[in-house]
């Protein structure tokens, strides 16, 4: 069973300073705690790491953005060895709010100016080619990694052993192979690393919206906690045809209607008269991913049914739980934005 505790705090301070008054408002902060029983527990990583740079884009090329302002040197904010992404915020209205691109930190730091190079080959970019983002406001955030999210060594939140059989593991879903892959927390003496096969993935990225399963191989619960900022802009989530293992972009549960999981929605969801030929949302039922909702479409009416409960319609029920990761099975690839503009603003 999964238990999560989520709390938010947004700090607002009004500080009188001689003749002026400044108001300082922090980004909303969250803390999430997961109690993972022995076995498998899908968890939803919805909080984000604090941004290291924010700015307004002045100009773009095919793979760079240059920020407005004087004396901006991005190497002050970025570390060449860290993976970052650029996300369009809602500070300035932009049709690309919520879209993300991976940052090439090595080239950006080397350039040492106001121009940031993006990795336009990365499959996790939400738009394949860089549009004209002039005037858009963006945040640059570091990604979560296995190390920053779950810890290693003295900070480890999972149980590590020298054996892949007994060590705890984190499961991610490989979209290309359509199968889960494991990263075991292997610990022996001074060696404390996440290994996928024999590949060290300790510092590999866990992308925004990427689903995560904790495999607790111990006899007692594992407690996973982490803190981060709450995303206050929309969230773009590309979907491929087939299985997508995702989580929410913000810690807000929602209904299929709110998520635009309808044929007329942004995602152009596909419904039919049978489950296998329809788009589906599949949740963990305690022993497998078998709690299946599917979009039924008669041509004039749409329903979200659950295979276990017959004709009960869940289209306006809050079945999309932000605390978990779950599968979306799409008959066709989705548009680039899964639910870009319909989330309630915080």
């Amino acid at each position, binding site marked *: 069973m999964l238990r999560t505790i989520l709390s938010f705090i947004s700090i607002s301070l009004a500080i009188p300073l001689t003749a002026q008054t400044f108001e300082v408002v922090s980004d909303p902060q969250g803390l999430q705690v997961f109690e993972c029983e022995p076995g498998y527990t899908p968890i939803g990583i919805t909080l984000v790491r604090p941004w290291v740079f924010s700015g307004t884009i002045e100009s773009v090329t095919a793979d760079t953005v240059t920020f407005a302002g004087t004396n901006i040197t991005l190497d002050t904010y970025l570390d060449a060895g860290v993976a970052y992404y650029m996300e369009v915020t809602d500070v300035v209205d932009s049709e690309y709010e919520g879209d993300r691109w991976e940052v090439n930190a090595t080239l950006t730091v080397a350039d040492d100016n106001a121009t940031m190079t993006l990795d336009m080959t990365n499959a996790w970019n939400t738009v394949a080619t860089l549009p004209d983002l002039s005037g858009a406001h963006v945040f640059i955030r570091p990604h979560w990694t296995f190390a920053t999210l779950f810890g290693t060594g003295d900070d480890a939140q999972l149980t590590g052993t*020298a054996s*892949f059989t007994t060590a705890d593991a984190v499961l991610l879903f490989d979209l290309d192979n*359509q199968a*889960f892959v494991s990263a075991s927390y*292997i610990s022996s003496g001074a060696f404390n690393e996440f290994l996928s*096969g024999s590949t060290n993935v300790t510092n590999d990225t866990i992308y925004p919206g990427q689903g995560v399963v904790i495999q607790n191989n111990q006899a007692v619960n594992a407690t996973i906690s982490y803190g981060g900022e709450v995303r206050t802009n929309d969230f773009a989530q590309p979907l491929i045809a087939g299985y997508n293992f995702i989580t929410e972009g913000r810690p807000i549960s929602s209904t299929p209607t709110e998520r635009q999981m309808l044929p007329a929605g942004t995602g152009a969801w596909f419904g039919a008269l049978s489950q296998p030929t329809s788009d589906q949302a599949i949740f963990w039922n305690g022993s*497998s991913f078998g709690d299946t909702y599917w979009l039924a479409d*008669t041509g004039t009416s749409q329903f979200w*049914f659950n295979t276990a409960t017959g*004709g009960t319609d869940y289209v306006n029920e809050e079945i999309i739980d932000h605390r978990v990761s779950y599968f979306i099975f799409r008959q066709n690839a989705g548009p680039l934005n899964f639910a870009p503009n319909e989330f309630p603003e915080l």
Partner: protein
Amino acid sequence: MNFRSLIAMIAVLALPLTAAVTINYNAPIFQSFQDSTGTVLDTSYTFAVGTFATLTPTDQNLSDWATDWQELGSVTFDTVLNTFSGAATLNDNSSPFTVDTPLYIWGYNSTDYTTGSEWVMLSNTTWETPSAAGTPPPFSMGADQVGTVALVGVLNDTGDVPYIQTAAVPEPSFYALLISLAVLGMAILRRRR
């Protein structure tokens, strides 16, 4: 029967969707892996996961293993972590990887049944091909799982060193037997003459 009930009934009758399942095969890190002479294994060794198309592997049919072996995936022995750890993808359950078919881990420097080949074959009664349908979690085949045995070679699960030791195939005793038979044959021929 209203429309919703009809839809629900169709849904229950629906077939599951097919994805794939990852099969992890591994041993604990920092273990002692040696060949039959006591030499530490190097990167010339491969550890593979797979099954046999028709035979059940025993020490009586070693010469048939290579031709019957159906490999799902393999990794080179990891000389840094002193282990092997691989992940293979089973996309469907077409023959020979039908559900419940026994799976094995074969460690070798060559699959040829010839002088210089060193093998270890690991088996466990729980290593049966899983269903690839739906979205199953990875299937694990660990050398240190309870019940794992070496059909050829040695697996020491009691903390003894080496942890895994390959065996020479054909075994030296096999050649000794051949030589003995040859000598015996020649002796018989000589007597008849």
